[in-house]
């Protein structure tokens, strides 16, 4: 273990480099003043400023000073270490200095961006520089650890994003575990009839990919399954998956459907999720015709045999392949993977939360997803737009932004609904010839071919009224309104409050994070935006990475997006995962802990506290021992050690004390 100052010469020779970051730092912090202050600090040989320290000339300046002034410690006062610590460590290494003789002072995110007063900002920046100078003096030379990585990848969620990512990885020769909690893969895209703006049949473009997943030798696909527990780290995750019973032997079932036909229930009993509750399925059922795996399943809460133990079990009789198995139990799988792609998608906003639009109160108020099933040939009405009252609508109103762009619910724009509403308008018109109104706040059709599609739907005669709808009511004030649903809206283009009677109302409900997204977030130790979407590492430059290395995001779980966006992101996530697992190793920050045998009293306090099971007790020598390969450098043992025997590289007591002293001396 190298713990002494073995850099060029033992006496620290520190260079301080203060960045303007254009006006990002310089507008609040008097950068020259900070430079002058740093110059006078102990062991500081040189102190310089530069407009953009991260630029090539900036880095060259640091390298030149290391060589010419024989600097052996570097402090850069600029932005967050998250952004540029790797950059400046490389700069040091390129000049022949061990990269861990470097310390960063964050005077942008922690100072200039959050401090209004320039005097206070300059003081705080100076204090942080003093702390870094004081700390870096007792830094030591360290080496990064290389840990081999597991080449397999897990993809959580098998909607279009998960499917696409899994196929890319599998085709690149990686073994993929695809975990889906629904009985079939396919996600929301499988429910859609047509896709905008090209109006190609959703199933026609999705099912070949579903089938490819099923037949791919590199993909292990687990449906009805959920991730239970995650441990380990990038390159070496251990993941426990709970596989719920299907009560059908998947390898035997050929989805002939005879079991379903003979079930003692003549009619459907359970609201069908796939048809958004518009139909009911029997306790034994096929989720939808193209479901993958092509296999029936049994709902244990509705099945008489499974819920009450008593049933004629005609299904068992009918199945000549003996595929029905009431004894199936939950299976707990444990797998090791190098990377994880989370593609868990979204749920639809509950339209009942906007009672002013009458969903659940008036029969003929629908959500757009319900209409998607109505117009689908495999849907509950075989593709006929027949409303709950048995009639076909002659006038239809589509209300945009239901739950979106609404401070009471979700402030964000769900981004796909304008286009989806245009598509729905087109489809409903095509199926019924109805007069269709769209009620919108703003039309958002920014991507390729979208504005053209908007134009096409306008040409088709669909009506557009700009204004947020106040309410949907059955309160008729004229004979023309009798028996109709009246949409009350302020038409903001003509400045008039209007009442528009229609037969059918369609609500373009928001996309929202899954109600249990927070559980998954905790399990994978990733972050969430305040709306509940999983947070990317950087909104522009690391859009599919998370703050946990080795865990990547794809699709709507990261934020609302359409199919092209989801697929593109899935591709990016697959590439990132591939890069990690193909490299063969990960470099780990040398911040592991160690135990000083001389000091350790063998109290074992640290052993159970280690979340990575890296500490064992050596009974022979009566000391705790840390396995460096397993240590993640969380510091829990260091903080808990009563005798100070546990220490951590990059965070030694001396380094932390010196950092604190640096600030305090300044004050």
């Amino acid at each position: 273990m190298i713990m002494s100052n073995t850099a060029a010469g033992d006496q620290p020779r520190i260079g301080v480099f203060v960045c303007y970051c254009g006006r990002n730092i310089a507008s609040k912090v008097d950068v020259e003043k900070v430079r002058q202050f740093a110059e006078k600090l102990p062991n500081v040989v040189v102190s310089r400023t530069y407009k953009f320290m991260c630029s090539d000339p900036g880095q060259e300046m640091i390298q030149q000073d290391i060589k010419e002034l024989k600097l052996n410690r570097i402090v850069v006062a600029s932005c967050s270490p998250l952004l540029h610590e790797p950059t400046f460590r490389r700069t040091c290494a390129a000049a022949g200095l061990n990269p861990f003789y470097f310390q960063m002072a964050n005077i942008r995110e922690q100072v200039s961006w959050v401090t209004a007063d320039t005097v206070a900002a300059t003081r705080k920046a100076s204090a942080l520089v003093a702390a870094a100078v004081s700390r870096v003096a007792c830094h030591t030379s360290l080496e990064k650890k290389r840990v081999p990585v597991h080449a397999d990848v897990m993809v959580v969620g098998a909607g279009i994003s998960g499917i696409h990512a899994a196929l890319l990885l599998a085709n690149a020769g990686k073994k993929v575990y695809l975990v889906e909690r629904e009985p079939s893969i396919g996600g929301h895209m499988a429910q859609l009839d047509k896709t905008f703006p090209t109006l190609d049949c959703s199933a026609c473009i999705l099912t070949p990919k579903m089938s490819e997943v099923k037949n791919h030798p590199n993909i292990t696909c687990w449906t009805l399954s959920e991730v239970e527990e995650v441990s380990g780290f990038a390159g070496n995750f251990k993941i426990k998956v709970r596989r719920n019973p299907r009560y059908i032997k998947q390898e035997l079932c050929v989805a002939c459907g005879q079991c379903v036909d003979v079930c003692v229930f003549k009619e459907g009993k359970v609201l069908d999720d796939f048809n958004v509750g518009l139909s009911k399925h029997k306790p034994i059922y096929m989720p939808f015709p193209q479901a993958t795996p092509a296999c029936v399943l049994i709902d244990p809460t509705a099945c008489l045999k499974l819920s009450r133990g008593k049933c004629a079990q005609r299904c068992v009789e009918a199945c000549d392949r003996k595929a029905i198995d009431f004894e199936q139990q939950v299976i707990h799988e444990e797998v090791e993977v190098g990377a994880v792609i989370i593609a868990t998608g979204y749920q639809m906003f509950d339209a009942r939360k906007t009672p002013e639009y009458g969903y659940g109160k008036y029969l003929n108020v629908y959500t757009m997803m319900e209409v998607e099933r109505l117009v689908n040939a495999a849907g509950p009405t075989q593709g006929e737009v027949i409303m709950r009252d048995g009639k076909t609508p002659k006038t239809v109103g589509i209300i945009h932004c239901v739950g979106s762009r609404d401070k009471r619910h979700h402030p964000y724009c769900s981004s796909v609904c304008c286009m989806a509403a245009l598509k729905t308008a087109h489809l409903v018109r095509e199926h019924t010839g109805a007069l269709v109104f769209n009620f919108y706040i703003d039309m958002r059709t920014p991507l390729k071919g979208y504005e053209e599609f908007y134009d096409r739907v306008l040409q088709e005669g669909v009506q557009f009224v700009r204004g947020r709808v106040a309410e949907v009511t059955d309160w008729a004030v004229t004979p023309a309104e009798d028996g109709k649903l009246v949409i009350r809206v302020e038409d903001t283009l003509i400045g008039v409050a209007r009442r528009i009677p229609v037969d059918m109302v369609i609500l373009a409900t928001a996309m929202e994070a899954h109600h249990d997204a927070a559980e998954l977030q905790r399990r994978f130790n990733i972050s969430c935006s305040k709306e509940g979407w999983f947070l990317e590492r950087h909104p522009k430059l690391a859009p599919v990475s998370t703050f946990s290395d080795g865990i990547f995001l794809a699709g709507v779980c990261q934020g609302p997006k359409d199919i092209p966006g989801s697929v593109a992101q899935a591709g990016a996530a697959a590439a990132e995962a591939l890069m990690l697992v193909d490299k063969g190793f990960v470099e780990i920050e040398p911040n592991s802990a160690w135990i000083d045998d001389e000091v350790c009293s063998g109290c074992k306090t640290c052993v159970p506290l280690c979340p990575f099971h890296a500490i064992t007790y050596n009974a022979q020598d009566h000391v705790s021992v840390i396995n460096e390969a397993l240590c993640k450098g969380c510091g829990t043992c260091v903080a808990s050690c009563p005798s100070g025997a546990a220490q951590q590289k990059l965070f030694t007591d001396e380094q932390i004390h010196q950092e604190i002293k640096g600030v305090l001396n300044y004050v």
Partner: protein
Amino acid sequence: MKYLYYPGCSLKGTGKAYDESMVAVFQKLGMDVEELQGWNCCGATSYMSIDETKAFALIARNLALAEQQNGGEPVHLISPCAACYLGLCKAQKYIAESEELKTIIVDSLGSVGLKYTGNVKVRHPLDIFVNDLGLDKIAKCVSHPLKGLKVASYYGCLIVRPYATFDDQYNPMTMDKLMVALGAEAVDWPLKTRCCGGTLTGTVEEAGLRLSYMLLKEAAKRGANLVATACPLCQFNLECYQSKMNHDYGDHVHLPVAFFSQVMGKAFGLDRRQIGLQRLMVPVETSPAMA
């Protein structure tokens, strides 16, 4: 928790039947309710639009009186009038959220020897009947179930808006449930929180009248034979202009409009004079179970 009762000016004037029936119902339900001593006008909507700070002080005096009357202990202040209720709720919210306003109010109350600490909970009687006493207890007091009575429950625009303190903002149901507990039928009526026109009937009569007329017409169309209200101005607008509506719009609206507390009193078998039924301009006796 102690209940104090703040009737407000309307309930001592045009809405006297609301006051009479409310007090009678409190008694019948065995509630220990004292009238707030020395209360003053809440300023209604008029003062608020002229000088908000002074209007808040005027309202806060009543809140301070309630604290004083209960010796500074936490107390519930019952406010049946929709305008008083909103004013009290609004004043509490604004004072709680602004230190600046709070200082002004506390100082001005202090100059007359009153204290306001925020220890008062403003309650609407509908909230108390349904959520404190409970519908079971109400149902037990019913001696004359209101069989055949079809009630359009009219909440008006103030008691659940903007502060939905005890019921849903879009589709309040408290009064509907209460009516069902009394043996009446609740008419599904989408206009239960639509404005009656308020003071417009006195200023821009045509505009106000139209709003009231639309309410009554839809209630009648949906089969209601009585409109129950929770606001003295709503009751006045809906009831007293019916002949003028019929004249102006060529219609034949004839629908009794009673305070919900009067309907309760009737179901409890109270005397018609005790609950002010004789004060109604459109005789309620023509409605089923109300004779």
